[in-house]
């Protein structure tokens, strides 16, 4: 490159003129184009492209504790607005959704607190969010009963994690629930590490019952063909990753297994790449595996997803306008025939 090629785009300074909408603010971030503001503005553009691209299937990979911290309804609303097509989640995120679906609550707390005292009061802490143990216990009790009902209906046959999520969504009636919204809108939720959450311990409780005829089993391998088929049949694929971990890798692995590679990628994380762990791995590194295309529209936003993701969604929803409707490329009823068995 020539010297002058490096000096093409001057930074435009952020200007706040009285009241700004969220999208007006992110446009100011785009004018700056620098640091986190520039990355956030780019993430808004990429997510907008994903949802406007009629050939693109949008995957949302969900990890970390954003659901108990307040992002539950946002995810459910995205499902209902068809602004995400497939969810891949940690078990814990879905557990916290189910806790609230059963009238449990998460409480604003503090990270400066006596944890020994919390233990004695049976209160769990997620940084500065508190969860009373009884909300878990009520979940355990009610879901153990659901496990029994599902196992009896299936005559002991195993379920994939998306079938399991669908069965729970069928039984949870609360409209702000991610599980319920996904059930009603026919959006698959994959929970590849389902046992690494309260769902695993509810299984233990369910299986502990004397004279239990059928035990509910979730088969981690069973869903692999389906998520790969979704990726494979979609002309284009995009992913929005909150955090990383198993959900991010599950989406990326589906992309590579279906010989596709992601066409769009937004990753929101605070993890570092130097450890070699997946959650902090850069999208350039991901290109080396073929999980994201080299020419893909992609950005990694370093920041708290509880701040970043709602801003992205608010900005893009504002751009799309109230008349925007989206029909996902894939007719999932064809793909999902196996989960209705």
């Amino acid at each position, binding site marked *: 490159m020539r010297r002058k090629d490096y000096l093409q785009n001057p930074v435009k300074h952020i200007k706040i003129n009285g009241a700004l909408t969220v999208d007006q603010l992110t446009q100011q971030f785009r004018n700056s184009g620098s640091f986190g503001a520039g990355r956030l503005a780019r993430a808004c553009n990429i997510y907008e492209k994903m949802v406007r691209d009629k050939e693109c299937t949008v995957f949302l990979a969900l990890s970390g504790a954003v659901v108990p911290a307040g992002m539950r309804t946002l995810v459910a609303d995205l499902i209902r607005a068809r602004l995400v097509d497939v969810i891949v989640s940690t078990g814990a995120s879905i557990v916290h959704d189910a806790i609230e679906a059963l009238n449990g609550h998460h409480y604003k707390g503090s990270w400066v607190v006596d944890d020994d005292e919390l233990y004695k009061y049976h209160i769990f802490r997620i940084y500065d969010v508190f969860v009373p*143990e*009884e909300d878990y*216990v009520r979940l*355990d*009790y009610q879901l153990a009963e659901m496990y029994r009902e599902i196992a009896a209906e299936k005559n002991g046959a195993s379920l994939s994690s998306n079938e399991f999520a669908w069965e729970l969504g069928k039984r949870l009636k609360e409209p702000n629930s991610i599980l319920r919204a996904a059930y009603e809108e026919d959006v698959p939720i994959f929970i590849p590490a389902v046992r690494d959450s309260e769902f695993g311990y509810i299984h233990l409780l369910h299986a*502990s019952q004397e004279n239990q005829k059928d035990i509910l089993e979730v088969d981690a391998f069973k869903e692999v063909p389906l998520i790969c088929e979704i990726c494979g049949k979609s002309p284009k694929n995009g992913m929005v990753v909150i955090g990383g971990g198993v959900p991010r890798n599950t989406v990326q692995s589906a992309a590579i297994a279906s010989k596709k590679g992601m066409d769009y990628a937004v990753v929101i994380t605070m993890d570092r790449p130097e450890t070699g762990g997946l959650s902090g791995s850069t999208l350039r590194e991901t290109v080396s595996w073929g999980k994201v295309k080299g020419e893909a529209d992609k950005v990694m936003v370093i920041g708290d997803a509880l701040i970043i993701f709602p801003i992205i969604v608010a900005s893009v929803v504002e751009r799309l306008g109230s008349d925007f409707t989206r029909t996902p490329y894939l007719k999932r009823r064809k793909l999902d025939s196996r989960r209705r068995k």
Partner: protein
Amino acid sequence: MKGGEKEKRFCGNCGSHNPYEYPTSMFCATRYAQNKDPIVDTLWCCDQWNPISQECHCVRDALKKKKGT
């Protein structure tokens, strides 16, 4: 547990307890496994009591609540 509570056996200081309606009622995993009603009074006790591994306030708060009612 403090003082005399140490000698007393309650659901609320049993190793199988989890709060169901803090501090008055508990969920008992042992009873659930036996297909019995798992929701028990914090201040009740059965013959399968086993010691809790770490101190909690369940019995103390249940006793306070009982005195207050």
